[in-house]
């Protein structure tokens, strides 16, 4: 039998990007440390999901924003090698600057790939030009088709802004009012959302809204904290 025709085979890349608020308010009530813990605890779950689908090659990156924005993990790291160094919080909430930098990376992604997953986590309101940053993301083909999720930490998070980032009325920002809820939501986006994004089915172009992903987003976990909000709300 002749050898298999064609060049080098490869699983399709899936880029997962954490977009983390590191403003000074994240220090209050240990929010930044809870975020560090939640992402670190999610890593093995994320690796398990990626391992279950070898036809998707998951790469992870992270960007922080406070006074401006900087890549926390600049180069895409294979999920099996993904480690989390603690973020530190201080300064303001330059969310728009982070979105501009993410948009620039999305522009560089090749056409071959699975829709990226972008997870925006914030406890406050942007102090810079959020709209320009959002437009930059939605101006990129992969930005439009990315799975965009957002997590609001605490009562002061700007839910309208986080909803605008998602740009899909069927998906709501996740509201984490306690460290436990934050862990649960971080785990959920690292597993259920990642799994769905790893093996999307085809969708016809008229069915797909131009600003939304064609990846079906599973239902988020029920937050029992919100049902009994006064009992264990800490943020």
């Amino acid at each position, binding site marked *: *039998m*002749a050898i*298999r*025709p*064609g*060049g*080098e*085979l*490869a*699983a*399709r890349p899936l880029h997962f990007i954490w977009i983390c608020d590191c403003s000074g308010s994240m220090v209050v009530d240990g929010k930044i440390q809870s975020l560090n813990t939640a992402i670190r605890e999610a890593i093995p779950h994320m690796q398990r999901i990626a391992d*279950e*689908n*070898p*036809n*998707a090659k998951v790469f992870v990156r992270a960007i922080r924003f406070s006074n401006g924005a900087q890549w926390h993990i600049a180069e895409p790291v294979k999920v099996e090698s993904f480690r989390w160094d603690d973020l530190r919080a201080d300064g303001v909430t330059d969310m728009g600057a982070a979105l501009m930098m993410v948009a620039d990376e999305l522009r560089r992604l090749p*056409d*071959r790939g*699975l*829709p990226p997953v972008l997870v925006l986590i914030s406890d406050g309101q942007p102090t810079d030009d959020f709209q320009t940053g959002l437009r930059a993301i939605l101006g990129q*083909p*992969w930005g439009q*088709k990315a799975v965009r999720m957002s997590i609001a930490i605490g009562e002061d998070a700007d839910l309208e802004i986080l909803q605008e980032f998602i740009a899909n009325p069927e998906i709501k920002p996740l509201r984490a009012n306690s460290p436990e809820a934050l862990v649960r939501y971080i785990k959920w986006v690292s597993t259920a959302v990642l799994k769905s994004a790893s*093996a*999307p*089915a*085809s*969708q*016809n*172009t*008229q*069915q*797909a809204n131009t600003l939304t*992903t*064609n990846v*079906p987003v599973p239902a988020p976990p029920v937050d029992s904290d919100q049902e009994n909000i006064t009992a264990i709300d800490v943020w």
Partner: protein
Amino acid sequence: MSGKKIPSSFIWQIIGASVRGANHLRHRIPNQDAILFSPKHKAGSTVFLAISDGHGSERSFRSQQGAKFAVRAARFVCRDILRSYCQTPQNLQKEEMLAIARYLPNQIVTQWRKMVENHLIQYPFQDEEKHLIDNENVFLVYGATLLIVLISENFILYAQLGDGDILTVSNSNEVNHPLPTDERLFANETTSLCMPDAENNFRIKMEIIESPPPVLILAASDGYANSFLKESGFLQVSTDLLTAIRQEGIDKVRYSLPTWLNETSIEGSGDDITAGIVYREEIH
């Protein structure tokens, strides 16, 4: 009809295979591609090939059937075209080519919708399926793409609705896409037979056979191209197949094809892969 003499008929062979994707196997999802071609196991001067890829999404939960209907509708319409336009050994006029280009998509969409409607009568939706149905477009449940290659003694027709690829290889080993790219086909989005204006979204090309036609034509569902690190790796499939057919014969390639497609899905996209290969026999 033009009185221009057509060249001597070329003789073609066609083989094809469809494999269930590695990811579909893991999740116990059936193969949602379909393929039909003729003639089988012999050479001929007329060739038909159709490949369809069912969407496979939650809302297209009967796309496996939709893909089967797509290739059957294509066969029905292509037979009709051959009967209507290819009875005399003369070149087609431009007007006739335009008529075929209009007829083919309209008739395929009409036939496909009829098949879907008949299936719905035989197998109505279950109560537990009804929440998944788009009441404004029930055809979405059966959504599927379509690739067609039709060769007669005097023309080659390429038609495509949705994702997937058709490649040609010339005598000088040059690889080409006979159809223009569709910029809308990005991030798993595709045009589809289920669209209300599906017939307007076909890409069609007809070539009169006046000079030597391609020596090989490859049509494949998108799971094939998506399996390669680079596009050049996929284009290489067509020239490697030509080399393999010339060196080892088409029967050995026919035998090996399912194994190659399985290996490609496992190490590549994980998607169903379907490929049809049309080979022009050397005339000595």
